[in-house]
Every structure is written in structure tokens, then in C-alpha cells.
């Protein structure tokens, strides 16, 4: 691996290193379903990007296009400035797929050996097995391996050409907690050497914990693109909760910072963009007590941005594109 990220995280402006992935106006439909509905995305060399979205958001369809397994109806795709199929032939890109792709009657070692033999340059199979943490089951038949072991085998296979770009499609689906942790620790260790990684997931924690950048997709479109903290900030603000007997929603609308007000019996919930001002007002100007301030997590951001109800649809149509920076700015105001 000779290509690593510069300290600043960007390539020299004068450089000609092409982006790891460049998608422009990519569309793909299956019958009436628009699986990918106009995706523009550039992944720079050295980035670790999470492709996050609910099931059916178009993640796998987009990944298939990046890998050259499927052709877009329109739009362009390039991997290190070349067609995906050519990037694969040169060993620049490899992938860990969600399921399948293994022969049950080969052993773990034979599977990696077979894969290695197909590339002009490849790492040693033993080395890849130990990097994937499955060296001790090298002689086991693939059909007898657990889901987690099979997934680490797919990872070992993907390492064979020592690719610049590794693509993982929901790599931990169906794994138990420990399997998931082991898998990610292997990926993380590997990525430290500067490999570019794009992974699709619908687990928020995974995106939050392992990615530098999160690209949120919904209905085949990118709805947000930024760092984990920027994404969280998109659904920014905090909830102030207090006990206030006899409160009426109408009276609380003008509370400083309040965006959404809800009264449940004696409890008031105020979603606020300035929780300090809201709390100060409630404690000094009203009879409120038992006051609590809670931050919204990435989970809320995710639901807000990918939810299907009209309210959140409105939220993110406003949020597309520049939303990350806008909200980051408003989050900074808290």
C-alpha cells in the first residue's frame, strides 16, 4: 500500500490522483422501483465512508454499480478514474459481500488460495487468514464455518490483491455481538494502513464508530453527507423536560429557544434549539421543577432523516446537500 492519506486529509490540489470513487447522476431502476435515484458522490483516497440507510434505501444497488456487477441506467461511475471492471482486473478494488460467494466444499485455506491465484499480485493466503483472524480454522470446510467465520473469510479473500479500496456491503448482518466486534477490529486494524473503505450498513453504531464520514441514503437519494457529529447535529437541539402543573401548550410556544412543545399531564417537553435559554426561562419565570436536559442522539438524526412520514420528509428535503453545514452552524449556536 503506497497510497496513504496526506496529513491534511486531502490530496495536493495540483495532484492528479483520481478519487477512489466518483459517482455522477447515477440512476438505476428495477421495473417501477427507482432503486438508485440520482446519486452523486465522491470518495477521496484514504477516507473511511459509511453508506448508511434503512433496508431498501438503494445501498446494495449503488454498491453493485461501484463494483461493476450492475450497470447504471444513466450517470457515470469511475473507480480510481477507470471503469469498475478494469479497476477490479488491476486489483485496485475488492469487496466483502453480504451473503453467498463461497463454495461449501472447499476449505477456508483453499478458498483464499483459489482467490489469490486469480490475481497477478497477491498477498500470501496464510498472511491474509491471520489478518482476518481465522488462521486456526484454515483446514475447515467452508460449509462448517459460522456466519461470522464466513464473513471473515470473505474479508480475507478481499485482502488478497491488497486493494486500494475495500467495499463492504452490510458486512455484519446476522452476526452476534462478539462476531461483529471481532470483524470490525480486523477491519479497523487493516484500515490503519491507509486503505480506503466504503461500507454499507443499517447499524447506526457501526457508522458512528468506524467511519470518518457518513453518507445517509433514503429512497435512492443522498439525504445527508458529513461527519458523524455533523449528521447528529442535523437533527440538532436538545429536549428540555420539566414538571409544570397547569401548563398549556399555547403558553409555552414563546419560551426562548422552543421549537416543539408538548404537554403530557404535568410534564412539559420542549424541543429546543437553545436549551440553556429555555431552561433559564422555565426555572426563573415559571413554577417548573425537576428539570432535565437531554441531547438527541444519532439514532434520532437517523430516524428524522430517513423516516417515511411527511414531517421528516419535509425536514430532509430542506436538508439535502448543504444541510450538514447549515445544521452544524445551528448546532454550534447551542
Amino acid at each position: 500500500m503506497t497510497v496513504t492519506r496526506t496529513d491534511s486529509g486531502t490530496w495536493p490540489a495540483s495532484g492528479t490522483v483520481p478519487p477512489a470513487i466518483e459517482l455522477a447522476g447515477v440512476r438505476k431502476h428495477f421495473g417501477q422501483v427507482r432503486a438508485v435515484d440520482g446519486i452523486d458522490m465522491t470518495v477521496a483516497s484514504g477516507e473511511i465512508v459509511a453508506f448508511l440507510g434503512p433496508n431498501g434505501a438503494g445501498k446494495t444497488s449503488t454498491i453493485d454499480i461501484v463494483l461493476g456487477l450492475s450497470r447504471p441506467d444513466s450517470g457515470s461511475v469511475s473507480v480510481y478514474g477507470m471503469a469498475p471492471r478494469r479497476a477490479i482486473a488491476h486489483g485496485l478494488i475488492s469487496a466483502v459481500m453480504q451473503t453467498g460467494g463461497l463454495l461449501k466444499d472447499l476449505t477456508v485455506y483453499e478458498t483464499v488460495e483459489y482467490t489469490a491465484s486469480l490475481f497477478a499480485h497477491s498477498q500470501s493466503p496464510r498472511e491474509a487468514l491471520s489478518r482476518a483472524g481465522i488462521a486456526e480454522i484454515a483446514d475447515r470446510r467452508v460449509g462448517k464455518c459460522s456466519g461470522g467465520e464466513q464473513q471473515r473469510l470473505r474479508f480475507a479473500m478481499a485482502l488478497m490483491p491488497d486493494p486500494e479500496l475495500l467495499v463492504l456491503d452490510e458486512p455484519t448482518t446476522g452476526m452476534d455481538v462478539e462476531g461483529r466486534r471481532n470483524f470490525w477490529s480486523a477491519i479497523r486494524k487493516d484500515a490503519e494502513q491507509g486503505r480506503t473503505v466504503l461500507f454499507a450498513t443499517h447499524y447506526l453504531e457501526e457508522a458512528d464508530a468506524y467511519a470518518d464520514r457518513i453518507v445517509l441514503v433514503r429512497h435512492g437519494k443522498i439525504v445527508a453527507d458529513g461527519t458523524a457529529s455533523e449528521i447528529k447535529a442535523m437533527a440538532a437541539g436538545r429536549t428540555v423536560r420539566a414538571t409544570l402543573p397547569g401548563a398549556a401548550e399555547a403558553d409555552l410556544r414563546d419560551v426562548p429557544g422552543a421549537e416543539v412543545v408538548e404537554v403530557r399531564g404535568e410534564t412539559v417537553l420542549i424541543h429546543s434549539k437553545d436549551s440553556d435559554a429555555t431552561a433559564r426561562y422555565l426555572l426563573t419565570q415559571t413554577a417548573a421543577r425537576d428539570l432535565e436536559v437531554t441531547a438527541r442522539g444519532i439514532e434520532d438524526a437517523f430516524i428524522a432523516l430517513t423516516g417515511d412520514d411527511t414531517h421528516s420528509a419535509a425536514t430532509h428535503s430542506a436538508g439535502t446537500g448543504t444541510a450538514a453545514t447549515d445544521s452544524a452552524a445551528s448546532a454550534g449556536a447551542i
Partner: protein
Amino acid sequence: MSTTPSAFAADLAARRMPPAGGFNLTALRLEIRRLLRNRRTVIITIIFPVFFFLIFGLNKAYASDKIGHGNEAAFIMVSLGLYGAVFAATSAGAMVSIERAQGWSRQLRLTPLSPVAYILMKVLTALVLGAGSVAVVFIAGALTNKASMPAYLWVVSGLSVWVGSLLFAAFGLLMGFLLPAENVIQLMSLMLTLLSFAGGLFIPISQFPQTVQDICKWTPLYGLNQLVHTPLLGTGVDWTWVVNVLAWLVIFVGGAALRFRQDTSRV
């Protein structure tokens, strides 16, 4: 630590594509090992033909009867060699069905392996197993000392059977692309058994009613079976046998190529 575009370019230049579309002997060895790991395939292609030869080929009532340049036992040996080799070739070809079902074909598309190199490996795997199948039947024929024909005919007949079995590697590939993995082996075994009867591998088709005989002459093993026995019988080649083999070759290769193309361009 930063890398310049020129270092990237150098790295890119160092990343060559594999020669011969990724075709290599390691993968071929693993393909053959996989095929041999399938007990059912080994039993059908290696044990069955020998077993049948020991039963039918050594029958004292007719085994030593002279026929062409050799004897009846040699004739049966060639038929059963063909049966084994055809089964081996079809099995190797039909493996693509299982590979497609397990997602292996898709996985291979994430490697530099070219589709043509993949098919070539399947064909060579078929030839290796087919060679083993012919060899054991011929060895059984030699060891039991019943099959008799001139030395050169052992070589010529063996080679004809072996090369002829390639027709069925194409048949296996076509079946592999057409049939679902769960029952490809069962369906294939059934079809080959019927085709073997129709082709006259087990009993001469002259024993069937005339109408059945007429139908049999159109089936894909008939022409091949006639041709591989020609050296032993010393009779001339009937052009209809050649047409039969070529026509089926076009159908199997064309069909497999068509399905294969649809498969790899599936989007």
C-alpha cells in the same frame, strides 16, 4: 506522510492484470479436487463403469466373440468408457449450477478471472475426470484379460472416447446454466441414462422396434457412440453420425454461450 500522484501512478503501473485472463494451474487443481470430493460423482464416473464392465463385459456367453478387429468384451469396454467419460464431463460442466446458486460466479466477477478462462477451466476439469474414467475402465479391461484388440486400437479408441466426451462438457455447462442447483445432479443422471440407452451404449439399438430406433438416431449420444466404435469395428464412417455430433455440438455450445452471456451481463 504524504504520497504524491507520481507514487500513485507508479503503484498503479505495478498493478498488472493477470496473464491469460486469470487462468492458472492452482485454480485448476482446486477445481479438480472439488470434483473428486463429490462422492456421488466419483461413484458414478469411476466405480459404475468398471462395475458394469465386470458384469456385462465378461459374460462368457459372448465376451470372446470376435467383432471387427477385436472382441465383444473390447466393444463393451469402449461403450462403458464412453459412458463414464460422458458422465464425468457432464458433471464437471454442471458444477456451474451449484456455483451460481452459491454466489460463487458472482464472487468471481470481483476478480480478474475472465469468463472465457473460467469456462476453459471447467472444460479442462471435465477432461481430467473423463481421462480417469476411461483409464479405469480400460485398465479393468486389460487386467481381466478378456477385452482383446490390437494395441493401437486401445490408444485410438481411448482417445476418441476421451476427446468425444467434450461434447458433453458443453452439455453439462448448458444444463448448469438452465437447471436449478437442487436437482441438477438427479436430472442430469436421469437424462444421461436415457441418452445412453438411446445411444446404444448398453444394448444395441437394433434390438428396439424400428420406430424407436429411428428416434434414437437423433439423440446426442448415438452419433458419438457409433464414431468411437468405428476404429474397432473397422467399418466406414456414416456421415449421419458426424452430422449428429456436430449438430448437437452447435446446440450445446451455442446454448451454453447464450445463457452464459445473459448470466454475465445480468444487471
